[in-house]
């Protein structure tokens, strides 16, 4: 599904190199987790995959279903099935949450040459999906993310994901800042979306999310690349022992 090969990325306006030869393959229908200390480049990777400005790819490639992602506009990547649940969801004052969702959904459908959803169909769908995420009518009406609590913002990201039905979902620290109940809601939302033709890349600091969303593969990332890959037990190991040992094995220290 997603294949990142030897990806090198620097900031456009600075000499700072952030991704240093990143390799990652997420197979169709699988759930991969990425863990790693702050500053490893996890968010940068997800932004670069989604097409945010400000980065320069100096080497390497990233493909989605065999298509080169890095040549596409952000909206084309979305239409091709890529979805990023933002670590920090953005507020858009004055734009109703529902309007936003509907605009996005129909823009994607249109880009794919599919029929747009009518108002009735859309409303039915959004109410159904919102219910399972415990998102009430009021939250649907309010402007996108404005005045939402941390938990509401993250649930809203999952709602968008549920509505847009992407093929490749990247969740950037969707669990951080959530209490146990909120995290369970988010995890349930994600689990409900698991499907043989849908892949996930879950970025997290904590094992506890992975108790709910069981990963097939766990990667440890630091200093702009994947250091180690293993099964779910790797997450447990990190939870118990921290990153120090793994980092040391690669000549890195925690402070980095």
């Amino acid at each position: 599904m997603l294949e990142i090969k030897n990806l090198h990325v620097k900031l456009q306006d600075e000499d700072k190199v952030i991704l240093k030869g990143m390799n990652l393959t997420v197979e169709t229908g699988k759930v991969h987790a990425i863990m790693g200390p702050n500053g490893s480049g996890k968010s940068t990777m997800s932004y670069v995959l989604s097409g945010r400005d400000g980065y320069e790819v100096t080497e390497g490639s990233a493909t989605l279903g065999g298509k080169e992602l890095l040549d596409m506009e952000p909206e084309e990547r979305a239409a091709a099935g890529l979805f990023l649940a933002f670590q920090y969801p953005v507020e858009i004052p004055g734009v109703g949450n529902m309007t936003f969702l509907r605009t996005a959904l129909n823009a994607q459908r249109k880009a794919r040459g599919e029929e747009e959803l009518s108002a009735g169909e859309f409303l039915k769908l959004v109410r159904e999906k919102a219910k399972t995420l415990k998102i009430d009518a009021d939250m649907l009406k309010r402007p996108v993310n404005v005045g939402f609590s941390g938990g509401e913002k993250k649930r809203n990201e999952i709602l968008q994901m549920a509505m847009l039905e992407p093929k490749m979902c990247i969740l950037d620290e969707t669990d951080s800042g959530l209490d146990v109940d909120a995290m369970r809601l988010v995890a349930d939302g994600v689990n409900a979306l698991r499907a043989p033709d849908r892949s996930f890349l879950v970025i997290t600091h904590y094992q506890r999310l992975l108790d709910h969303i069981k990963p097939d593969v766990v990667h440890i990332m630091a200093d702009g690349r994947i250091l180690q890959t293993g099964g779910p037990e790797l997450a447990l190991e990190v939870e118990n022992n921290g990153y120090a040992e793994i980092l040391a094995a690669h000549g890195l220290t925690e402070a980095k």
Partner: protein
Amino acid sequence: MQDADIREGVDRETVETVQNMGSYKYGWETEIEMEYAPKGISEEIVRLISKKNDEPEWMLDWRLQAYARWVGMTEPDWALLDLPKIDYQDLYYYARPKSMVEKPKSLDEVDPKLLATYEKLGIPLKEQMILAGVEGAENINLEERQVAVDAVFDSVSVGTTFKAKLAEAGVIFCSISEAIKEHPELVQKYLGSVVPQTDNYFATLNSAVFSDGSFVYVPPGTRCPMELSTYFRINAENTGQFERTLIICDRGAYVSYLEGCTAPKRDTAQLHAAVVEIVVLEDAEVKYSTVQNWFPGDEEGKGGIYNFVTKRADCREARAKVMWTQVETGSAITWKYPSCILRGDESSGEFYSIAIANNFQQADTGTKMVHLGKNTRSRIVSKGISAGQAQNTYRGLVSMHPRAKNSRNYTQCDSLLIGDKCGAHTVPYIEVKNNSSRVEHEATTSKVDDDQLFYCRARGVGEEEAVALVVNGFCRDVLQALPMEFAMEAQSLVAISLEGSVG
């Protein structure tokens, strides 16, 4: 919830409209045989316009007085506008379709070409039709959504719908030329009582040469049974449009009035100098909404309408209320300050404005809130959006007179910049001459936020649509003050006006 659903429908409609549209979509021209007064302005031309309208003597005298005054006046130069020289002798002051020489007695007799023009503009001149279909319209009482239209084409009113139905309620809605003949006592009493002939250069010019416009009278205690609207179309080349609107809302009455404007694309600029006077009596309320979409000129700044408009409401008695809402997307130059004279005690005025300037457009617009009565209230919400190389100025006066004790004003003035070649300016004038009144002013200037655009795009929304979405969000407070049909049109206009402003 139902309301919210309709709003959602409205928002979506906008986005779709935008997707399906090119830029200025009203730029086509109606080919129709016209009759013109000779070019230029003189006493003879003033007499001729009066004669064409079959006016009584008093009206002609009034015009001539204005003309005599205008000859000695000079154009104002205080606005932040780079004004090209206007040659007032190189314009036509009167142009009417030949088919309108014999006034049609009913809408059925109106020239099909004219009817087709308004149909193409989306303005229904048939009484069974309502304005553009709204999502969820099946839930709306159709009667309530009916809108009466007065259609003004160049210098003349082509027709007014729902006159009979309005007359049943005692509401007079007709062209001003007709009112001058049919209701002279009302016109004589109120014309020039809000915007005096001597008010300013353009108002004086208008007083001399105005050719048509709309007239509304709502009798005491009457809630006007439907929304009223006037649709102004400038079609003829090198022709100025000088319309005059007079609205009188008698004691305890209510009316909501909409105004729309478009013109063909031409590479020479055209002059539009209108006057709107609103008289609001005790406990009466008027809502006046404008979507101004005159041709703004092309990407290089050629052509477009020069829009010099004097709009003023006089809350003449206690508890009178007026609300101006304007969406200014068109015109090469906009010079416009819809104002409220809060004369009656406890009267109130509101002004909601969206002004968009793109490419080489220049807008200098705002309001005046003149507090004369005790316990008067005013509220100003202005959203200015600048893109391309445009200059956008908010100019507002809030004045609290000594007698206006315990009065309040709240002003919120937000500017949004797209790109770095445009400008936004805020020029508030505040005069408080008593110590029990309060004036609050808040102003912000921001840029369209890259993170917001990226967030939209990461969800699949294209760049221009993303800008439209974010800008519509920025304008939300004002869009919500508009009647629904207008809100829809306004939102899509916002998007269209900003086309080509990113990337």
